[in-house]
C-alpha cells in the first residue's frame, strides 16, 4: 500500500461514486437534501442553456468569439438611461469597498481612516456623475467636437474641465491626482459616458435609421434559415453515426462560422446579425451541449485571423512570444485604449456599463479576482436593468446571448478569470431557470436580485466566514507572511489586529505590479507592525515566519492553487522551511478543472513592463530591444501551486485540506452556487 497520502483515491476508496456517508439507514432519504432550502425546480434536470454553459470548455473561459457571439451583435433598441451612472455609483457599491483597494485612488494618500479612503477610492473608480442639469450640454459639446474618429486627448481634457465642473464634482478632481495614463483613461471613459448619455438622442436617431434598414435583410431571413436548417440536419445525421471525435467537433464549429460568413462587415452588420440570431439560437445550444467548445489556441493562425475580424477590441499581437506560451494571447499594450474609446458610439451591442468595466480591465484599473467579478456583475446588473426584450424574442434566449456577447467583449479586454467564469455560469443558469410565466420586468428584477445575492453571499459573506475561520489560526507572537495583495488576507490580518492579537506581518511583493505596497499602506494605516520585502528575499525571511497566508485566483480540483505569479515560489519556500501555508479562497472560485502546470492555461501580461523600469532610465538596458528576433519576453500573470505545498485551504465551508476541494466542488458546485 502506498503510504503517501496523495495516493490516488480511487485505488483504495472502497465504495465509489454515491457513497452514502456515515450512518445511513437504508430507506432514509439522503441527508443532504434538507440542508439547502427546498427548491422545487432543483430536481429537474438543468435546462439546456445552463447545461451548455456547464459544458463550455473546462477552462471556463468561453471561447472568445464564436458563432453565437457573432450573431448576437444585435442592435440594442434602447440606450442607457441617464440614470445609469448615478445608480452605479450609488447603488450598493459602498459595501464592496474592500474589494476595490486603493490602486484607483492614490488621491488621498494621507487619509487617516481606512474606510474614508476606501470611499474616496470608490469615488474615483466608479466616477460619480452628479445629476447636473447641463449634462446634455456638455455631452453635446463632446459629441460635436469628436466626430466619430479618434479622440484628441488634449481636446478631451479641455472639455473634461468643463464637464467636470458641471457634471461630477467628485470624480474628476480625484482622478486628476492619479498618474498621467490613468487620468487619460478615466477621463476618457468619463467623457465618453457623458457624451453617450447626452448624445443619446443622436444615437437613437441612428437606431431609427438602422431600424428602417432592417426591412431589407428581412427578406433574406427565410432563406438563411432554410440553409442553416439543412446544414443542421446534415450535421445531426453525421453525429448520429457516432462521429463524435474531435475532428467532427471542429468541423461542427467551423462550418456554421462559414455559414455566418455572409454577414456583411459594413455598418449594418449588427443589424443583419441580430436578424439571424433569433432563429439560430437553439441549434447553437445543441451544438454546445454535445461538443465542449475548445479554447482558442492563439498559435492557430487561421482561427486567430477569424477571431480578430470579429473582435471589437483591435489587439495587435506582440511579436516575440515565448515558445511554450504561443497558445496564449499576448497583445501589445497601449494601442487599444484610444482605439476603443473612439469606438464608443459605434458599439451598440455592448452596454456602456459593461464597456466601462471592459476599459477598466484593459487599463488595469480593476484587478484582483473579487474586484473584477463584482465590477462585472454590477455592470451586468445595469445592463439587465436597461434591457428590453426585442419583439418576437424570448427573454431567456435573447438575454443569455446578450450576456454572452458582453462576456466575450470583456474577454477581449482581458481574459476572464476562472472565478468570473463561475459567476457567469451562475448568471446564465439563473436566466435559463427563469419561469416562463414571469413578466419581463419581474424577470429583470429577479435577475438583479440574484446578482445582488451572489455578490453578497458568495463574495462578501464568504469573506466574512473565511476571516472568522482563519483568525483562529493566528496566535500571539506569530509572524505572518503574505504575498501580493489579497482582499481576503487583508481582512484576516485587520480582523486579527482588531481582536488584539499580537503579531507581525511580512508583506512580500514582486515587480511589476507591486500590489503589495497598497496592502502594506492599508495595514500600516491600521497600525499593524509590518515588514516589506521583495520576493528575492523570501528564502531569507522565511525562517522567522510562522504562518503563510496566501490568496488565490482559483483553486482547481486537484488542489492546485492558481494564483498570482510568485505564489508557487513563496509556497515552496515555506514548505521547505516547514511553515504552514494557508490559502484563503472563496468557494465560488473553485473549479473542477485539473491543471498540472502553469503553461496550458495562463495569461500573458505586457512584456514591455518587465523589460524596462518606468522612471529608471539608468537601468533600461533593453530599450528598443523588445522586437529583436532572438529575444523573447515572458510576463506571466498566474502560476499553479501544487497542492503538496498547501497545508490548508480556508473557504466558506470551513478549513479543508486541498484534497477536499473536489468534494466541495461536487457537493456544492451545482446546488449551492446555482441556487
Amino acid at each position, binding site marked *: 500500500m502506498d503510504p503517501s*497520502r496523495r495516493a490516488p483515491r480511487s485505488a*483504495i476508496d*472502497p465504495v465509489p461514486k454515491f457513497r452514502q456517508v*456515515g450512518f445511513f439507514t437504508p430507506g432514509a432519504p439522503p*441527508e*443532504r437534501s434538507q440542508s439547502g432550502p427546498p427548491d422545487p425546480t432543483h430536481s429537474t434536470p438543468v435546462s439546456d442553456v445552463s447545461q451548455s454553459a456547464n459544458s463550455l470548455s473546462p477552462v471556463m473561459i468561453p471561447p472568445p468569439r464564436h458563432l453565437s457571439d457573432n450573431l448576437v451583435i444585435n442592435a440594442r433598441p434602447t440606450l442607457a438611461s441617464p440614470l445609469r451612472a448615478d445608480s452605479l455609483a450609488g447603488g450598493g457599491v459602498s459595501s464592496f469597498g474592500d474589494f476595490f483597494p486603493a490602486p484607483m485612488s492614490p488621491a488621498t494618500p494621507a487619509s487617516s481612516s481606512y474606510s474614508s479612503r476606501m470611499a474616496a477610492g470608490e469615488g474615483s473608480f466608479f466616477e460619480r456623475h452628479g445629476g447636473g442639469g447641463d449634462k446634455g450640454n456638455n455631452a453635446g459639446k463632446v459629441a460635436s467636437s469628436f466626430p466619430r474618429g479618434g479622440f484628441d486627448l488634449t481636446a478631451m481634457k479641455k472639455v473634461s474641465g468643463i464637464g467636470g465642473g458641471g457634471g461630477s464634482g467628485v470624480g474628476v478632481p480625484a482622478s486628476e491626482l492619479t498618474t498621467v495614463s490613468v487620468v487619460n483613461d478615466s477621463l476618457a471613459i468619463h467623457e465618453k459616458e457623458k457624451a453617450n448619455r447626452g448624445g443619446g438622442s443622436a444615437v437613437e436617431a441612428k437606431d431609427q435609421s438602422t431600424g428602417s434598414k432592417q426591412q431589407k435583410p428581412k427578406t433574406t431571413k427565410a432563406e438563411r434559415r432554410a440553409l442553416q436548417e439543412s446544414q443542421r440536419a446534415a450535421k445531426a445525421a453525421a453525429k448520429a453515426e457516432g462521429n463524435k471525435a474531435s475532428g467532427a467537433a471542429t468541423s461542427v464549429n467551423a462550418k456554421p462560422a462559414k455559414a455566418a460568413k455572409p454577414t456583411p462587415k459594413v455598418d449594418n452588420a449588427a443589424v443583419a446579425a441580430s436578424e439571424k440570431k433569433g432563429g439560430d439560437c437553439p441549434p447553437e445550444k445543441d451544438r454546445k451541449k454535445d461538443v465542449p467548445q475548445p479554447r482558442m489556441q492563439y498559435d492557430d493562425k487561421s482561427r486567430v485571423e477569424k477571431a480578430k475580424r470579429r473582435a471589437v477590441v483591435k489587439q495587435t499581437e506582440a511579436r516575440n512570444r515565448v515558445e511554450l506560451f504561443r497558445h496564449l494571447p499576448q497583445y501589445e499594450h497601449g494601442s487599444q485604449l484610444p482605439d476603443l474609446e473612439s469606438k464608443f458610439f459605434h458599439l451598440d451591442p455592448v452596454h456602456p456599463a459593461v464597456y466601462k468595466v471592459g476599459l477598466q480591465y484593459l487599463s488595469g484599473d480593476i484587478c484582483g479576482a473579487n474586484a473584477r467579478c463584482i465590477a462585472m456583475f454590477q455592470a451586468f446588473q445595469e445592463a439587465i436593468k436597461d434591457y428590453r426584450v426585442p419583439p418576437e424574442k424570448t427573454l431567456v434566449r435573447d438575454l443569455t446571448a446578450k450576456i454572452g456577447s458582453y462576456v466575450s467583449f470583456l474577454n477581449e479586454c482581458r481574459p476572464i478569470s476562472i472565478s468570473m467564469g463561475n459567476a457567469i455560469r451562475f448568471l446564465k443558469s439563473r436566466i435559463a431557470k427563469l419561469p416562463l410565466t414571469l413578466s419581463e420586468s419581474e424577470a429583470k428584477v429577479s435577475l438583479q436580485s440574484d446578482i445582488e445575492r451572489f455578490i453578497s453571499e458568495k463574495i462578501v459573506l464568504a469573506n466574512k466566514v473565511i476571516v472568522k475561520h482563519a483568525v483562529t489560526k493566528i496566535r500571539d507572537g506569530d509572524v505572518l507572511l503574505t504575498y501580493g495583495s489579497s482582499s481576503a488576507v487583508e481582512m484576516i490580518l485587520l480582523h486579527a489586529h482588531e481582536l488584539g492579537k499580537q503579531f507581525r506581518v511580512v508583506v512580500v511583493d514582486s515587480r511589476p505590479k507591486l500590489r503589495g505596497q497598497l496592502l502594506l499602506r492599508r495595514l500600516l494605516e491600521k497600525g499593524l507592525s509590518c515588514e516589506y520585502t521583495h520576493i528575492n528575499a523570501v528564502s531569507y525571511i522565511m525562517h522567522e515566519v510562522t504562518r503563510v497566508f496566501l490568496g488565490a485566483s482559483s483553486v482547481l480540483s486537484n488542489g492546485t492553487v492558481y494564483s498570482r505569479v510568485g505564489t508557487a515560489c513563496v509556497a515552496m519556500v515555506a514548505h521547505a522551511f516547514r511553515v504552514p501555508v494557508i490559502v484563503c479562497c472563496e468557494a465560488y472560485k473553485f473549479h473542477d478543472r485539473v491543471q498540472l502546470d502553469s503553461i496550458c492555461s495562463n495569461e500573458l501580461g505586457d512584456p514591455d513592463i518587465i523589460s524596462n523600469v518606468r522612471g529608471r532610465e539608468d537601468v533600461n538596458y533593453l530599450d528598443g530591444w523588445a522586437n529583436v528576433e532572438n529575444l523573447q519576453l515572458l510576463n506571466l500573470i498566474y502560476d499553479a501551486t501544487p497542492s503538496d505545498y498547501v*497545508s*490548508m485551504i480556508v473557504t466558506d465551508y470551513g478549513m479543508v485540506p486541498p*484534497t*477536499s476541494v473536489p468534494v466541495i466542488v461536487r457537493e456544492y458546485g451545482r446546488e449551492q452556487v446555482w441556487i
Partner: protein
Amino acid sequence: MADPKISAYYQTRMAHFGAVTNDWLAQAQSASVITTTPPPPSPPPTAATLSDPSHQKPSFSVIDEFNRWRKQPDLAEAVAAIRALAAVIRSSMATTMMQLEIELKSASDSLKSWDTTSISLTAACDLFMRYVTRTAALEYEDFNSAKSRLIERADKFGEISYTARKVIAMLSQDFIFNGCTILVHGFSRVVLEVLKLAAQNKKLFRVLCTEGRPDRTGLRLSNELAKLDVPVKLVIDSAVAYTMDEVDMVFVGADGVVESGGIINMMGTYQIAMVAKSMSKPVYVAAESYKFARLYPLDQKDLAPALRPVDFGVPIPSKVEVECSARDYTPPQYLTLLFTDLGVLTPSVVSDELIQLYL
C-alpha cells in the same frame, strides 16, 4: 476539577483504565452540578425558560444519565454520551420540535462542557445532533411521530456507535497476515478488539507493545494480550526506532481524527509514525467514526493541550519545566490507512466524510 494541572481528559482515561475511584466519582458529581445549573448558552429567551431541562424535569439530568452509561465497562465515553442524549429525547416533555431541539442542544452543550478536552465526546455530541436532527421527514410529520422517529434514529446511532468497534475489527482482519509483527502504541480498546479477533481467527502474529510512559498503558495492553496467548514483547518508548526493523505494521488508536486526516492520539504516536514512515512501514489507525472532529491543527501547538501528571520517580527541581501534554498530533502524510466503521479510508477521505456529515 480537583487538580487544575490535570485535565478532565486524563482523568477520564484513568477512570477507564484503572478502578473507578471515589474522588473521581465526586469530581464527576461536582461537574454535573456545575454544568446543569446554568441555563443553556443562548437560546432565544422565551424558549429558554421552556426548554431548560432543570425547569421541566428536575429529576432528569443528562450528566447523570451519561455517568450511568459510563459505568459500563467497555463502553466508550462518546457512546455513553450518545446514549445519554437519546435518553434526553425520550424523557423530554417538549411539545414542539423547536423546543425539543433546543433542549437537546443544551444537553449536548452541557455534556461537551463536562469535558472540553475530550475530542471524541465533543465530536460525538455534534455528530449526534447532526445525524438525529437532520431527517427530511421532520417537517411534515406531527410532533409525536417525529419524536418517535428521532428516538428511533438516536437509538440507531447509538447502536451503530456501539457496534463500531466490532465492524472495525472485522474490516482490519484482512491486513493482519500470518507471521506478522505488529507494533502497538498506547492502550486502545479498538486495537485490542482488532487483535483479539485476529487471535480468535487463529492468526499467528507477534505484538510489540511500547511501555507507554508515564501511565504505562502499554503494560496494560500486554497483560490483556498475554491473556489471549498472543506473543507479546514490551519495548520502552525510546526503543521504537531500534525495533522498527522487525516490525511489519504499526497499529494505533486515536483520540480524535481531524479534518486534515491526521490523528490526535497519545503522546508518542507522532514520532512512531515518523519512524515508521522513514522505514516504509505502514501505519494503521483504528478509530470509530464518532471520533471525527471538525478540527484542523496546523502543528502540535495548535491544539488545546490535555495535561497529565508525569512521574519521574525522583523529585524534580522546581526550576525544571516538565512537558505534561498527554497527546500529540500526527499529520496525515505519516498515516497509511484509517480503519473506521465507515470503511477503510485513506486520510484524505476523512475530510470528505466530515464535509458530508457537517455541511
